């Protein structure tokens, strides 16, 4: 059974259908805010013996990461205590003994961390309907290019393997045992940023089960 369609409407239907489909865009459901871009990355270093780690030490400093062109902007220093506190707590929770303040005790690993307030630019395309589909020459504006920017914030830390390193001897090779980083720590409110820092650090340890002190493995 067929439905009669007035010829005039019938001529419009193809264009209507086409235009409606184009609204979907090339990249549907793309990231729309900084939170969408949150990322926790961890990497183990091949050749590292993770089974025999016991102690750690860390400095009470969050260095400014170098963005390559020397333009790295430090994140708000008020977040530094949160970063250091959470990292220390996560290491202890993983079974490591903190020997930072124990003179004469050499740690197995040294935790160093840095952060930078990086700005990320992204591009998106959209089709903007201006209405009046009956208007002669009706249609859509050409695809426009929009630009958005996020201050995402990046936090990175490493465990430097100090086993086999002789204290006081300069120019020794010190290998990293674990590299971890978080993108998207900066949020729209300080409390949210603190939450993002804590959540990101915990996730980094969760997805790296090999970062466990020997005592915690038993």
């Amino acid at each position: 059974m067929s439905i009669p369609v007035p010829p005039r409407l019938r001529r419009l239907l193809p264009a209507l259908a086409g235009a409606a489909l184009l609204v979907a865009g090339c990249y549907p459901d793309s990231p729309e805010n900084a939170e969408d871009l949150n990322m926790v990355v961890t990497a183990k270093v091949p050749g590292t013996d993770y089974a025999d780690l016991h102690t750690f030490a860390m400095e009470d400093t969050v260095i400014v990461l170098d963005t390559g062109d020397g333009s790295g902007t430090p994140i708000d220093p008020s977040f530094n205590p949160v970063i250091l506190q959470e990292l220390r707590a996560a290491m202890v929770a993983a079974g490591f003994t903190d020997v930072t303040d124990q003179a004469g005790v050499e740690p197995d690993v040294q935790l160093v961390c840095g952060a930078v307030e990086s700005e990320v630019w992204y591009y998106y395309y959209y089709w903007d309907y201006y209405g009046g589909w009956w208007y002669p020459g009706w249609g859509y504006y050409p695809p426009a290019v929009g630009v958005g920017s996020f201050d995402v914030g990046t936090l990175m830390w490493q465990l430097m393997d100090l086993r086999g390193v002789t204290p006081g001897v300069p120019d020794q090779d010190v290998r990293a045992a674990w590299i971890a980083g978080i993108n998207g720590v900066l949020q729209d409110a300080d409390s949210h940023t603190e939450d993002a820092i804590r959540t990101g650090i915990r996730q980094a340890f969760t997805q790296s089960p090999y970062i466990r002190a020997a005592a915690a493995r038993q």
Partner: protein
Amino acid sequence: MNRKIVLALLLALVAAAPAAHGQNAFGVCWTPALPLGDTDSFAPGLTGRGIGFDWRAFRSREFALGASFGWSVFHETTSGTFDNGTVAVTANRWNTINAAPIYVSAFRYGQASRREPRWFAGLNAGTVWLERRTLVGLLEFKDTNWHLAVAPEVGVQLPWDAFLGYAALRWNVAFSAGDVDTQQWLELRLGFGLD
């Protein structure tokens, strides 16, 4: 190279069409599609984002040459931890395929009047511009290639006074190119025109 071949075929087709003194027909269709094989692994699930344009020059009542191009978008958003044993990443991940086939085609039509549905079957061949893009957090991985492609198709041309012009099923097979394996999707073509 693929583009040159397709463009040459299209030009030859356009040049040959008027000589046929036949009827030219144009159609626009919505092409919801189901990804298959590697395409389904990358961006699974039925997609409604697709559009197609068809042009056919009837050399006789039962035979038409034509051209077709379109655009389909396959997309999946996931989040979780992706671990390759050395590097682990926890993030949102957006997988998107943009595929734009450009085909020349030949179709055989069944005998019937314009007041009756007319079955047709044919083969499309040409190239597909295909972009596979993965966005993980702030990292973007993109692979764009021109794939040689074929697309067998069966369909029905509906009576001239029907609401819909035509409906067809097309199996797109875009052969491997660059680092991208063969991509496949089955699309339903619901169109206006072609009559």
